[in-house]
């Protein structure tokens, strides 16, 4: 079953660069690497999936949402079914690890009684329960990215979108983050990871993994 499908997607910008023709599917439980050089359009593809952008042509289908028919007020409900992580972590510096993860539940109206249990479980999944009272600046880069992953997972999404999640990390820490993502994927959450680093795929092969290349705004298998 496809959880994400992009069909003949085009995006046009005034400057000229955009997406020319993107076709991509992600099936439930799959781990897909979207590999391409900087400026190829990887981040744009992810932005299309969480509908921060709309295609000029073609369509994006994510779960039950379709880019051609979704209304702006439905976008938050789509995003609650996705987990998103970035190269720069996007943590709230003035909140503890626990509060950063709880934040997702707070702003999406989760029940108060479920909050602690869900936050602690998400932190346990990334191996950071013991650092829940720390502030982000007290953590290493790899730990901060793990907090971001916990925050993305706490709503139990069907897919995790990762935009160069290891771009700011050293090789050892990168392997640690990859292990966490593989563990999440093994539990059934699909992962779509945009990266320029093809070796991440090569170094950790698995039957669940697949590569989609993107260059100059077009995908190829």
């Amino acid at each position, binding site marked *: 079953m496809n959880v994400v499908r992009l069909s003949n997607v085009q995006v046009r910008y005034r400057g000229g660069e955009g997406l020319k023709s993107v076709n991509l599917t992600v099936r439930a439980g799959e781990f897909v690497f979207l590999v391409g050089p900087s400026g190829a359009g990887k981040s744009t593809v992810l932005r299309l999936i969480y509908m921060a952008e709309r295609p000029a042509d073609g369509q994006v289908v994510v779960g039950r949402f379709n880019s051609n028919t979704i209304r702006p007020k439905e976008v*938050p409900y789509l*995003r609650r079914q996705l987990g*998103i992580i970035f190269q720069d972590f*996007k943590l709230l510096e003035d909140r503890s690890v626990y509060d950063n993860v709880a*934040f*997702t539940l*707070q*702003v*999406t109206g989760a029940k108060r009684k479920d909050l602690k249990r869900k936050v602690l479980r998400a932190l346990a999944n990334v191996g950071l329960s013991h650092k829940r009272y720390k502030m982000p600046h007290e953590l290493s880069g790899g730990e901060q990215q793990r907090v971001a992953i916990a*925050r993305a997972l706490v709503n139990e999404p069907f897919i995790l979108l990762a935009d160069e999640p290891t771009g700011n990390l050293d090789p050892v820490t990168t392997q640690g983050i990859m292990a966490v993502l593989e563990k999440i994927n093994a539990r059934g959450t699909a992962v779509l990871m945009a990266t320029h680093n093809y070796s991440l795929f090569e170094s950790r092969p698995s039957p669940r993994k697949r590569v989609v290349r993107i260059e100059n705004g077009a995908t190829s298998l």
Partner: protein
Amino acid sequence: MSWSFFYSLREGLDGFRRAKLASFIALMTMTFTLILVGVLAVAAVNLAALVDAMRGRIEFEAFVDNGLDKAAVAELRQKLLHVRGVAEAQFISAAEAAEIFKREFARASGKDGQSFLEALDANPLPASFRISLQKPYQNSASAQRVADDIEKLHGVDEVVYRRDLALALDRYARWTLIVGSALGLLFCVGAFFLVINDVRLVIHAKRRLIEIMQLVGATRAFVRRPLLMQGFLQGAIGGLIAAAGLFLLHRLLLFELGATLQLPGFLFVGLLVLGILLGIAASYLGARKYIQ
């Protein structure tokens, strides 16, 4: 109280911390505006009371034939009371008019009016009705209509009243309303835009928080709510300070000038409500404009 209420309250208060100077300026402007609006309202209320009191003094004198007998006078009085706008009609006979003249003449000139009247062969003063108007008719246009209606009655020779006073009062009341409303509106618009600007700065200070909220699936209403809360708090605090300031100003005026100045209680509630409405409306528009 719901979870999101406390969240919005906490984040709303946090907005003051994140954009301290802009919030302070917006709050001070709001307070200053509300005090000015309050001063204008006090002036308007007191001026309206003054104009009302003066309008109550607009009386008609309807001069009638001296030859009317008692029954005809009574009949005419009934007719007068049936004229639309007439509140009361008091008959003043020629003899009573002479007595009034003597008193008024003596008071005004310091001389005895008796000798002046006696110099004439007969009492030249006509009998009349002193007519007062019902409140809604105490303005120049209505007064003129009532005067015209009275003049048509059989037995009435002439109707006189202070038309110039009625016209002047109308003019003053109208200008007071126009100038007061324009100033009040101007102040409110100024405060309104400053609060919008404050919202812009708060949004800028919280852009990362807002971005993350949107990424994890917060609805637009949820993202806006803390800003509305901040606008509400700004308006409420501004309203309370303004009400207190107005109260102190009123006390000071009473103490210093010994003036009797009305300060209606509804003004305090009005300032609070106006502050809250201004704060919420400006925050709402600011949030709509600056949060995509």
